[in-house]
């Protein structure tokens, strides 16, 4: 349930990251709202696939760490790594994501790719944007890692996917929004703030684990 709630609460951030990739693609490929629905479905399938695989990975990694103080230290160090990544990403100079570069309004290149792999391209785009280092994704990683097992971790990501997906439903009818760049900047900075939060948590966990050793 907490995965679903996190998805609901952070869906707009997710949208801010995925929409710059998805909207130009939909605009380039689909002639109208109805025709963009199957493309959106494939894109969402790609996201789901990415989330489930990552949930599996996080769950396996979490179960390998074990229990007790070592688990605390393990998670603490993982949180510190995640925090460093998020802070650099959020507060560093922005760069364009690879998925965004693939689309980037260059419809001719896109059409060429879509012509070569018509069914696979939206799935790959969904996979790439789904695994973006946005704040909701980072929080989902932490939530899944603490959920206590492989199945619980995969379930966490599946419900997180459901929560965020609600925000994608109006996209076929919306078209491109003007303020995506600002939203992306805010979401990037939010990733940095969330990174600082993980820094606190990481330090507290490592300290607690070391004290109990």
């Amino acid at each position: 349930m907490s995965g679903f709630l996190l998805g609901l609460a952070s869906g707009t951030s997710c949208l801010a990251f995925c929409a710059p990739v998805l909207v130009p693609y939909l605009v380039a490929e689909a002639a109208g709202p109805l025709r963009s629905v199957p493309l959106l479905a494939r894109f969402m399938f790609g996201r789901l696939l990415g989330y489930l695989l990552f949930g599996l990975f996080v769950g396996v990694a979490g179960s390998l760490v074990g229990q007790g103080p070592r688990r605390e230290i393990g998670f603490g160090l993982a949180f510190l790594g995640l925090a460093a990544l998020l802070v650099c990403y959020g507060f560093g100079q922005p760069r364009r994501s690879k998925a965004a570069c693939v689309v980037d309004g260059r419809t001719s290149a896109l059409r060429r790719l879509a012509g070569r792999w018509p069914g696979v391209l939206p799935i790959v785009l969904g996979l790439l944007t789904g695994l973006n280092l946005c704040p909701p994704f980072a929080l989902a990683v932490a939530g899944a890692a603490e959920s206590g097992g492989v199945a619980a971790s995969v379930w966490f990501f599946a419900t997180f996917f459901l929560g965020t997906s609600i925000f994608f439903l109006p996209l076929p009818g919306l078209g491109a929004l003007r303020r995506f760049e600002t939203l992306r900047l805010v979401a990037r900075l939010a990733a940095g703030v969330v990174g600082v939060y993980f820094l606190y948590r990481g330090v507290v966990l490592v300290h607690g684990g070391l004290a109990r050793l």
Partner: protein
Amino acid sequence: MTEACVMPLSAGRDRGLSLGRAVLVSLPMVLLTAFMLIGGRGGMPRKAMEAIPLLITFGGVNVLFFLMAKSGRTDRYRAVLFVTVAVSFAISFVANLFEVRGSMALTEEDMLRGRTPFCHMVIPMTLIPAVFTRTINFPGSMLGGFAPIAGMFVIWIGATVSLGRGFCSWGCFFGGLEDGFSRVRKRTAVRNIADRWTYLPYAVLVSIVILSALSLSPTYCMWLCPFKTVSEYVAVTDFRRALQAAIFLSLFFGLVVVLPILSRRRTQCGLFCPMGAFQGLFNKTNLFEVKIDQSRCSDCAHCTRICPTFSIDKASLARGATRISCSKCGKCVDDCPKGAATFHVKGTPFVLGDKLARFLFLYPAFLFLVVFNGGMIQDTIRRLFLLVSTGSLLR
């Protein structure tokens, strides 16, 4: 932009009123503040220790409003009251904590027993997650205390509807501290703050809303509030709480003291505060705004350098408006060398140096500042009398 009426060059700066008109304009404020400050207590108190602080507050605020009317300058006199409110809040609140708890420290037991007072900073992380999760994250118990909290929400809604982000310069009892520190130095030491940092408050807002929804705890109060330093700090009983206390102190001294002194801006309000970001969203629906007459503007960009909340940039200047984060403090209106900035009521024709629009905004804004915070000023004066007579701020 709507039509701009042409005025003589000096008119933009000469916005004051004659003595008679200033008195006339100030009279409604005298009556309103008398009604709210004295009438609200059921009449004039008989004890000198109650009556004198009330009279000083009443007289002081009305002198300030008169000076605002007479001189035509808004920010200069607003800031005097705003800083007084913030200092009064710190003195009154901390002294009250010592009387009630015997310490400024906030323990787990205090939180569980709901001994934490309401603070407007928690509004975004209370309201937004409540919409999604139907769970209220509140730093304390609401049992037995729902009525005053509901009352605060009603006051906040009223202030937000009438002032928008003006709440941050005309109501917030924290903002005055950095406003005061930003006026300490005559020269600016830190000038170039990248534009992208002005979006940080929205990022903090998004982060605390997500984190509060996920952890079902008041994340901002637990980890990010710079004002814990002047209100109630977490009792340091273990490593985690020591870390929290260190964060609160660093954020306070960094964002509320050092950076405002160096940059002469309100850096906590402009670059960090999630409540401010939330309030800014209501500027879209608020009647009042600050507009810039492009025909008079000489592109000197003075306003972009002095705006305390980073609410004017080249792009907004080109639109003849401020950004969504404008807290309507009036500094740009006071200081524009060409007098191109003006208070304006949306939906009405744009008139440079519009006195009516200015007063239509000033009445509710100033009254809110006085009524919302007047009690704290009186309490502080009482405590200062106590300090002089007994050597202690505590009753």
